[in-house]
């Protein structure tokens, strides 16, 4: 929407409102540029909320520390023979798992948020329907970033030495952030569909656990029974984990990286429109 002088003055004695002029100025939808400004405004809101409620960062801070150390020392010997041999397998797996946990929080928080009165206003404003969904997801990039870096640092502290060097690590973290953001659309869609935040939490758990544990995140796929191995190999999380391993451990941009990115794009292409549609219908 354009702002002209007749629309904006709010002094005590403003120019009179002229309805026909306002009607003539209306547009049938938000332009791409307007939508982008709206998404950024919603992202600003989400960041403000994060800063005021730091307890939201609990999962992002604790999970990387706790799970990395715990899984390494418990499964290290059994799966790879030693903790140090397991770390190159484990760290990318934990990264994927942490990213999915953050995704889940995205859906739950959106649902909680949508129940608040302010969403009535968002719906009544002439803004792109995607803005209230995409805004918080941009803010969540911060959370993915913190979680990924923290996981990697914990790994380094307990002895992980990635062969990919700094560039490989940056690449791996970047891929995790992209993957987390893409998969979050699934949970955002759930958030717009479900009746309550609790139900989003419940359904998300049922999706998240199979997605992470029925992947190669913690164990080599070859050790699984054939039928399970088949599922593990098509699971997008497996591709992300393999791609992050290639980047971390070898610094190599392999075909897996390509597959992971394609998988992410497919998820966004399917679930972003579904989420927007379900959000618009909810009104």
């Amino acid at each position, binding site marked *: 929407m354009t702002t002209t002088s007749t629309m904006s003055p709010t002094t005590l004695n403003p120019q009179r409102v002229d*309805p026909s002029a306002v009607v003539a100025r209306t547009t049938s939808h938000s332009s791409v540029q307007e939508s982008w400004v709206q998404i950024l405004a919603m992202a600003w809101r989400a960041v403000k909320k994060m800063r005021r409620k730091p307890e939201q960062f609990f999962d992002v801070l604790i999970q990387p520390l706790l799970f990395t150390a715990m899984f390494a020392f418990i499964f290290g010997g059994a799966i790879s023979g030693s903790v140090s041999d397991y770390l190159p397998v484990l760290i990318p797996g934990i990264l994927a798992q942490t990213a999915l946990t953050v995704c889940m929080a995205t859906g739950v928080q959106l649902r909680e948020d949508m129940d608040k009165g*302010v969403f009535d206003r968002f719906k009544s404003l002439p803004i792109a329907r995607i803005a209230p969904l995409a805004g918080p997801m941009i803010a969540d990039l911060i959370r993915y970033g913190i979680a990924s870096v923290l996981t990697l640092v914990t790994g380094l502290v307990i002895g992980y030495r990635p062969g990919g060097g700094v560039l490989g690590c940056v690449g791996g973290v970047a891929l995790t952030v992209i993957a987390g953001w893409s998969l979050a659309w699934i949970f955002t869609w759930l958030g717009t569909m479900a009746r309550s935040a609790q139900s989003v939490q419940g359904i998300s758990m049922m999706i998240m656990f199979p997605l992470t544990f029925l992947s190669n995140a913690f164990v080599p796929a070859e050790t699984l029974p054939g039928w399970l191995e088949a599922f593990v190999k098509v699971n997008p999380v497996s591709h992300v984990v393999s791609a992050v391993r290639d980047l971390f451990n070898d610094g190599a941009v392999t075909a897996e990286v390509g597959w992971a990115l394609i998988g992410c794009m497919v998820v966004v292409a399917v679930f972003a429109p579904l989420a927007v549609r379900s959000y618009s219908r909810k009104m």
Partner: protein
Amino acid sequence: MADLSAVRAESLVKNFGDFRAVDEIDLHVRQGEIFGVLGPNGAGKTTTLRMLATLLPIDGGHAEIFGVDVRREPHRIRQLVGVTGQYASVDDDLTARENLWLFARLQGLTSARAKTIAGDLLERFGLQEAADRPLSQFSGGMRRRLDLASSLITRPPLIFLDEPTTGLDPRTRGQMWDTIRELVTDGSTILLTTQYLDEADQLADRVAVIDRGRKVAEDTPDALKTQVGDSSLQLSLADGSDTALAADVVRRLLGEEPVLTPESGRMNIPLPDPNRAADVLISLREAGLGISSVSVAKPTLDEVFLALTGHGADEPQIEAVR
């Protein structure tokens, strides 16, 4: 301004499952007026407003706002209408200033412009001192004012107010009324819902009375009130056996039928003009009839309702709803 209606809704229908919340309601709101939708809780007022504001899909009928089709062009409608809900639609996690800035940004104002407007509105609504405090410290009245301020950022030509004063104390209520009147002098049109006849009376140019999803009347507040008498004189006779005599006196004097209440010796007398209360009392004394208590009461929404839906015998389908 051409004779363009602000709102033109025909046969609006909303169903929630089997329950018909809004049943073929017509609304015609003229430009520049305050139009009141009056009805008890659950009558369908809010649902009607939400449909017109594109917050609920319209199940049947047709609605236009300033000539723009509500169902076909929701994005345009949202640029024409400012909505202030029954429960303040502001963000509790932000301050008042941040709320206004966010809503202004979302509507395409530049950051600097949004800041100026937020400041202006905070000043206009007396929220300057509280501007940077969290909303959890706001009183009900302050939240309502912030909510209304949020609806005015782009100065929409049509403003929906859903029960703007429900739950406010009398003083805050009076302030809200003043603010609403001010908006109309700016050229805005207002569609408001209320449960209170006196609020409709104070503010609205015309009123539609809604009951169980149907419009049962539409008129000026004065015309509505005269249907039940402007006010009523309630008296208790000293001697209950005089009731018939007293009723006779009233009938002869005012030409109105007093309403006898179940308690013996009590009656409500509709008064087209409150000044005639004295005449009634004098006549009763002249007739030698003693009075034990007397009061003059304004008609309540209940009475208007009874009067309007009382001849509801011709609307037996009301019973069928629900």
